């Protein structure tokens, strides 16, 4: 694999290091609020990678939904529950050793497979967006080709949100 050190490549490696660093930071800090904030860093870094890949609409949706909604929702949940919660210091119990070994093993296997596979180099003249800008192209594909899944996923969303409201409301059965 021959690396070309141009601007986007350097940007990609810096962003990737930032994302992995934020993910490791999430697992190493002990206060739950800091964990929720560092996962925001992971989400923003992933959005930057989407922009580098030319998927601007997905990047903006990622920032709107993940950073804007999910992180804030998690902070609300932390505030509403035990907001002084701290993780106990990491201990090498049997379960944790098993989880660590399993994760490292899976990472090694995945990286070995990725390394041993010859990935096709993407052609330079690929026109994913078919002449439109990325949001227009995604809208056209979404409503022409994927109209039915789009309606179904809206159904999933409304069922999920109504279910969340019903689950989270106060029970009245003990009065």
């Amino acid at each position, binding site marked *: *694999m021959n690396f*070309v050190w141009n601007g986007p490549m350097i940007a990609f490696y810096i962003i990737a290091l930032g*994302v992995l660093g934020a*993910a490791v930071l*999430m697992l190493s800090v002990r206060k*739950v609020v800091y964990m*929720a904030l560092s996962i925001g860093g*992971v989400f923003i870094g*992933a959005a930057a*990678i989407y922009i*580098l*890949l*030319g*998927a601007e*609409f*997905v990047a903006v949706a*990622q920032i709107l939904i*993940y950073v804007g*909604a999910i992180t804030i*929702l*998690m902070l609300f*949940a932390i505030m*509403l*529950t*035990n907001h002084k*919660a701290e*993780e106990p210091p*990491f201990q090498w119990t049997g*379960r*944790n050793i098993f989880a*660590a070994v*399993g*994760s*490292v093993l*899976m*990472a090694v296997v*995945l*990286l070995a497979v*990725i390394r041993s596979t010859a*990935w*096709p180099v*993407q052609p330079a003249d690929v026109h*994913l*967006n078919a*002449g*439109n*800008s990325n949001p227009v192209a995604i809208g056209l*594909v*979404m409503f022409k080709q994927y109209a039915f*899944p789009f309606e179904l*996923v809206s159904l*999933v*969303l409304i069922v*999920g949100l109504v*279910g*969340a*409201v019903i*689950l*989270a409301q106060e*029970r009245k059965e003990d009065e």
Partner: protein
Amino acid sequence: MALNSPVFPIPTGSLLALGALLFCIGLFGALTRRNLIIVLVSIELMLNAANINLVTFSRLGVNPSLAGQVFSLFTITVAAAEIAVGLALLLAIFRLRKSSEVHDLNVHKW
């Protein structure tokens, strides 16, 4: 306005390796953490790693199309619904048991 967004030849292997490492970090977090919120966050991390892979693959293949990006949008929607239901369950459990630790949720253990 640039109609065709610039295409940077980032090697596919690097992107997939990033996704794989993020997935494994999320897996480790979901398996070892004790706070229920952090377990949910780790699951979101794994979903995000899958999204990076989907967007990466959307430009490869015999006929590259936007299918990967559209699929990752669907994944983001499902992740939003999942986290809403998960946090609502967390609130309900916290009201019942005054705790958000995974170890305190063994009511149905026999």
